[in-house]
């Protein structure tokens, strides 16, 4: 190919990429770069002064920021594996059950509800005056239950996030299951394997790639969790650093320390990147060993 033709082909490619690229640069790349620049300044209201790496040093030594990680870590280590386990189980059932499209739709619906609306709905379900559980509990003689307080909140978050994401995750796993050639299962059946053995020894290993991607995306979501605790914060007073994302928001918009919040945001992004990178590396090493 001569240079002119190469150029013409590349230009076409960039033209198609252009809408996304423009949007990406304006809304993602530019704010990150400009924010990074601003993060080298201290700030109070209208005043800004140069501090170099001072903000980053403060963040690294800020106990409020790091203690907020306990909630995302709980979600990462408990909610994500639990959800993947349940979703695999449900996806395998989708294969076996008649009219599975009805169930797929029903379980998918919570994902279609925006997180903020879900937060409001669930705060009513667990409110101490309007919860539908109240008449049921009073039948057993239990009155004045305060579902939503700081210690129960983590479990309620678990329930809400499982409710929101399991159907969606099951659907993705199901579509991967569909791509597994039927011959594998048939051959195993001929060899005398039952369904559980087929599931464990054939299907799940072939799902590993999908599961890894799902795990990483959910881990990123868990570390950035904001919507659900924020909405529940309307009924339970939460400390400003309940999760790192909430702390970043509060530092910026309640205390007006935008530049400190930017530094925290970039460090949070760094932490998430490091964790994702670690998982991808370990997992791909595992893949290589298996093959």
């Amino acid at each position, binding site marked *: 190919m001569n240079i002119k033709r190469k150029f013409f082909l590349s230009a076409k490619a960039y033209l198609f990429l252009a809408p996304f690229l423009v949007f990406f640069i304006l809304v993602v790349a530019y704010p990150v770069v400009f924010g990074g620049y601003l993060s080298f300044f201290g700030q109070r*209201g209208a005043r800004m002064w140069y501090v170099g790496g001072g903000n980053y040093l403060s963040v690294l030594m800020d106990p409020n920021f790091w203690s907020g990680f306990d909630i995302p870590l709980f979600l990462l280590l408990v909610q994500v594996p639990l959800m993947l386990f349940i979703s695999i189980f449900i996806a395998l059932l989708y294969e076996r059950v008649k009219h599975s499209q009805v169930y797929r739709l029903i379980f998918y619906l919570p994902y279609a509800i925006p997180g903020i609306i879900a937060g409001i709905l669930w705060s009513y379900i667990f409110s101490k005056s309007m919860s539908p559980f109240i008449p049921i509990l009073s039948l057993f003689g239990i009155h004045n239950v305060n579902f939503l307080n700081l210690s129960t909140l983590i479990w309620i978050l678990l329930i809400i996030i499982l409710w929101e994401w399991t159907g969606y995750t099951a659907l993705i796993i199901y579509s991967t299951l569909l791509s597994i050639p039927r011959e594998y299962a048939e051959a195993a059946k001929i060899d005398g394997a039952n369904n559980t053995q087929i599931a464990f020894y054939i299907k799940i290993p072939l799902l590993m790639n999908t599961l890894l991607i799902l795990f990483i995306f959910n881990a990123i979501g868990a570390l950035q969790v904001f919507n659900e605790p924020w909405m529940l914060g309307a009924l*339970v007073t939460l400390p400003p650093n309940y999760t790192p994302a909430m702390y970043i928001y509060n530092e910026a*918009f309640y205390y007006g320390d935008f530049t400190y919040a930017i530094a925290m945001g970039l460090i949070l992004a760094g932490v998430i990147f490091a964790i994702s990178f670690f998982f991808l590396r370990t997992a791909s090493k595992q893949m290589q060993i298996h093959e």
Partner: protein
Amino acid sequence: MKKLVIFAVLVALVGVFVVFADSTTYPAYPAYTGPAATITMWAWTSNENYSIDAFEKVYPNIHVVWSNFGVDYTKILTSTAAGKGLPDVIMSEYTYAPQFIEYGSFQPINKWIPESLYLKFFPEYSLKWTSLDGQIYGTPQDSGAIVMLYRKDIFEKYGLTVPTTWQEFAQDAEKLHSENPDIAFTTIPNNWVIWPVGMVWQAGGSMFDYANGKWYVDFTNPTAMKVFDYWNNLLQEGAVKFDTWWTADWYKEIDQGKLAVIISGAWSPEWVSLNSPSTSGKWGVALLPQWDPNNPHNGEMGGSGFYVSSQSKYPEAAALFVLWLNSNPQSLEYLNQKSQLAALVSNVFTTDVAPSLENVEYPYFGGQKIVPVVLEANNQVNTAFVWLPVMDYVQSSMQTEFQKVIDGKESLVDAIPNWQKAVVAFMKKQGFNNLVVGQLPK
């Protein structure tokens, strides 16, 4: 043509009459010496347009455009940090004004409203809410003088008397708790810092102040601890409890009659009538009980002022507007009648406007004439202090400490020094090296 001239003369006469009619003891408003200007305002008081229309008749060269921004302090924050986007006039609660002064959101207007002129229209203590270091930034609008809303039917049913001392209040609370533990005599908000600070204020004290370039922080002084000890006792007896205010659960409690008393600002009669129409006719308004009936004090919970922003291109116009808005008798009448502000801080309100409102009967309060009560509550406010410039953090650290009290991990009395420690640490981290901890200015 002749008719037009007569009409114009009549309008001018009315205009002059409006300006000078009730200001027999008050100075004339300064004239506007600047160019024709359009100024913008962010405020959440309803129906300000009546006052604005009257103002524009008197100052025809100034046009005011008003937008309701809710109580969106974040918007003020971000516009201040960005260096643009602020209007000419900003409404802010007194509690948060020092924060915005410190941020650089407001500009001083002493040039057009010197302290001598300010003090003709507004009480001296209100300078603590609208100025810092002798620089005046705005004028105060409504009073947040604390009043007590109580359910007359619950009081009657359980034989409770309207308390006039805190001792009687405690007795009422204990009596109700023993007769019907399902109804809370009153609840303490765990998410509204203005309340505990207001209660210390009502006892004649304060928890912080500003003087001579220094911020004073003292949460554990004797007056404050007297108040916290009192509420600690009631909490431990179970006669009162903590609650999260302004939530759907709380409004439900009010509707269902699970709350006998609400202690809040002078705006709360209006607020409760809007938020709990189903309990109309059952509430009464009373003065707060006193620690020493011979030496009455009151504090404030809420109330807002109007300040001139640092980005305003027409500060003279904005200054004249905020002066007129919050002190002209016609404007004050509109603010009371159309914007439903029960009590206004300006001296003009007490002398010229309030007397005509004393006989209005309020059906929501069973026909009670509440204006004299609210006015008396306002008149009992005889001290003030400057709020800390970090009230958002004072509130969030309070929430964290009070949550520990609710969870039974510490008593209210033990929480206060921890709270102060957190606030002092935060202020130091924000670069305030002019702190005096453990005492208040003489």
